């Protein structure tokens, strides 16, 4: 029997309808490309990452999480000029980690989601930084204050996004 930090009642597995599964990540990628053109500060947010975490924690399936994250990341990569796979790999790891953690702990309350988002934002940035530096030889600077600040900002936005996702998820 797997040891979890939550009761059996709290470990709910949800699913999303097919339109929601397709349109929500697509909308997140679109808004991520659209909004920073008009609101430059929006670049600190990563909507596709928040959607990845939201889907992964709701489904609680590592396989679904890693595939969802990978696909969202690849689509996000396609809009950049960089090799496809940078965001893909980072979001694959995040999708897998978030869904695996979602099995273990209660991720239904806002506090847990807040911390989870900060954690996975930093993980995402570390993976991305590592791949970009080591595999693609991009010149990148790492700044802990910036990453923490961005993580907190994403976590705040994430609470809103997860609440919206809660409205469309369906109990299995």
């Amino acid at each position, binding site marked *: 029997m797997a040891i979890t930090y939550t009761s059996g009642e709290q470990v709910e597995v949800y699913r999303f309808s097919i339109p929601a599964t397709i349109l929500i990540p697509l909308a997140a990628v679109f808004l991520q490309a659209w909004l920073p053109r008009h609101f430059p500060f929006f670049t600190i947010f990563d909507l596709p990452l928040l959607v990845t975490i939201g889907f992964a924690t709701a489904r609680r399936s590592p396989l679904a999480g890693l595939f969802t994250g990978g696909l969202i990341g690849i689509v996000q990569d396609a*809009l950049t000029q960089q090799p496809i796979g940078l965001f893909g790999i980072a979001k694959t790891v995040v999708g897998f980690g978030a869904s695996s953690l979602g099995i273990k702990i209660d991720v239904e309350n806002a506090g847990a989601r807040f911390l989870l988002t900060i954690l996975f934002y930093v993980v995402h940035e570390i993976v991305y930084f590592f791949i970009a530096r080591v595999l693609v030889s991009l010149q990148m600077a790492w700044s802990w204050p910036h990453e923490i600040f961005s993580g907190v900002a994403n976590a705040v936005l994430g609470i809103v996004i997860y609440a919206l996702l809660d409205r469309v998820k369906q109990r299995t």
Partner: protein
Amino acid sequence: MFGRYRNLIVLVGVLFAQILGLAVQVKRTRNSEPTRLIRIWTVGTVSPLEKGLSWIQNSTGNIWSNYIYLRGVRAENRELKRQIEQMRLEQARMTQDADQAHRLQALLGFKEQFISRTVAAQVIGGSGSDLSRVIYIDKGYSDGIKPDMAVLTKDGIVGKVLRVDHRHVAQVLLIDDQTSGVGAILEKSRLQGILRGTSSGGVVLEKVMSDESVPIGERVLTSGGDGIFPKGLSVGTVTKVTSGSDLFLNVRVHPDADLSRIEEVLVVTQVDEKQVEADQMTPIRAVDILAQRLPTVPPKPEPTAPGQTPTGTKPASQNNPPNAVAPNSVTSAKIPVAAPPAAANTTNAAVTPNLKPTTPEHSGTAQPGSNTATTGIQRSGVAPSATSTSQGTVAKPKPNMPAASGSTTPGAPATGQSAAKPSSAGTTTNSGAAKNSAPKPTNVKSSSKPPSQDAPH
């Protein structure tokens, strides 16, 4: 075994596949890189949404700003008119310098580049990532856009076209992306370097030796050495100079174009190169030079017609170029704006003869007396041809003159002011515009470029 570690095995497999794909992409050179289907699908899916939202946003904004919110427009109009008058004076002075440079180029047999065709495009989206500074424009290969074309705004260069995978969408790499590189030169010290973006979104000029002196505030222009950007386009201003590594300076540059808020751009689809021809020059006679250097009596102001700006009263030495009274110069005295009949036979000789037209629109919309601000003094002995020039004859755009209203003159690179806010209408062809809109003066060569088929300026 597999069942227990299934998730981990799948994770490793997926990661391995992506890393393998990444390695393959990195190993390939850009020239051999095929267009990835995933990019086409993604851009094809996202760009229509972006275009739609851009259209809605622009329409709403236009209705608001053009029909509803007109506060301060009159004051702004007055201020702009005042600026135009000042700029005309400045233009007259700069024309003399440009003419001199032109003559020297001809003497030395230089070839000069000039932008002969541009396509206006709207920015419809970006990558959404700080680490990938690209934008998407609403023009693609069906509009003649190709990779490695220069992209600029009226303020300065923006970047280059990176990918054109769609009929009406192209990806533009901004100059502040760390993978971009632009050949640049400092305007006064003529030091050359490579302009690169940084990971933080800044722009630095590299490869400037540390024993050189680079003053803060010096302007940076394109050097033309990269084969993408024509020489002389405005890039930015030096804001900070520190000692870098490997005996090179770290010169921080603030781009003239606001790269984070670009809405419209011009894509340079055609750059022509031609020999500077001697017969484009206006011959200078010794007597003309002498006449210019001799002290002159300031002339009386021209009696002004109603609504006409009083004629300038600056000394002849300031406003009249050496060739102002030369017969040839009179016939080539092309004025960028149409003069009123009243002023036609009086002021043109005093106008800098080689004032080149900015845009044909100017000649068509000029108000009576509008060119008198550029005139220094009334000169006698003006040849009859001066009258004809004052009646709206528009000369061929000269390479060194900036253009207005979205057109790019051949000399746009020299000033970086060539690209006024473009409409999304499409192509601008300057030489063709000049050719179509005005009678061809006898002593001015017609452009070798055909007129634009889209929207000549």
